[in-house]
């Protein structure tokens, strides 16, 4: 398992540099995954980009876990194109104050990814140059991917539950 040993090397380098801040390391389907904290996330991303050659930011997104204390996970996917490696980084932040430093200082391409994540989850990326909604209409008023909202449009009057057996 060549990839596993390579991933272990990355894990060791990260743990050497950031110590306790790197936790919950796992490798589901060969994809190195770990959790870090929002005070070091930019340092972790910079380190991965500059020292470990993870040159490409594949995606930034988020997951809402309503049952957890820090219920919003911001997820970063990085790609080392030269060595064909990927990592997944999660940062858990609180639902009441969902803020995290912007990654646009590391990758310019993070701009729209963060706008999308803000649009759907309401996460404030501090230092982002232009944090506006990107896909939904400006006066939507809610962050629709948070799980407290119903899946269906509650304004709709013509779809009565009794006609749909629910």
């Amino acid at each position, binding site marked *: 398992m060549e990839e596993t040993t390579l991933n272990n090397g990355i894990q060791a380098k990260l743990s050497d540099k950031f110590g306790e801040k790197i936790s919950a390391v796992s490798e589901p389907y060969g994809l190195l995954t770990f959790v870090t904290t929002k005070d070091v996330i930019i340092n972790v991303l910079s380190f991965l980009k500059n020292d470990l050659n993870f040159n490409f930011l594949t995606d930034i997104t988020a997951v809402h876990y309503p049952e957890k204390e820090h219920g919003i996970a911001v997820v970063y996917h990085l790609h080392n194109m030269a060595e064909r490696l990927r990592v997944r980084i999660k940062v858990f932040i609180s639902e009441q104050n969902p803020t995290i430093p912007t990654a646009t200082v590391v990758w310019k391409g993070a701009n729209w990814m963060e706008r999308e994540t803000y649009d759907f989850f309401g996460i404030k990326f501090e230092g982002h140059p232009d944090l506006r909604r990107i*896909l*939904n*209409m400006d006066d*939507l008023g*809610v962050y629709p991917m948070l799980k407290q*909202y119903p899946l*269906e449009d509650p*304004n*709709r009057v*013509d779809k009565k539950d009794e006609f749909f057996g629910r």
Partner: protein
Amino acid sequence: MSEINIVDAPPGIEGSGFFATSLDKVIGLARSNSLWPLPFATSCCGIEFMATMGSHYDLGRFGAERLSFSPRQADVLMVMGTIAKKMAPVLKQVYIQMAEPRWVMAVGACASSGGIFDTYSVLQGIDEVIPVDVYVPGCPPRPEAILDGFQRIQDLVKNESGRRRNSDYYKELLGQYGIK
């Protein structure tokens, strides 16, 4: 040579050298057989509309040969496809830019009611933002259904009173949508 069909004259009084009928009926007859549609096609219903305009189904048979891609000269707004809430102000703007008299046809489930897209980002029927004259069901409707819907529009045009657009009822209807 194929047989050429000419529409029947409206009911009226006929005599030697004259024919008398009401102005409404004459105007209705003329308008209904030369409607200029504005296709507002956003998804798969638009593909069915393309088939409807093609030679096989040929919407031109009903006097709608000439599509208007400017709302200024259009008579019928044909909304075909899912309208996202972000698109709603655009659709309303297009409707406002059309000159009176104007008609609106909602083609397909999405334009009529949001269809399967019962979600936060999709308008649940265009009648939330503009008044609709004819709804065509289907997902997507067959060209025959679109043609039938178009003929229902023609019926409305043919029988509309010349004063309807100035009536209080009509102003109130537009007022409900915030259109002056």
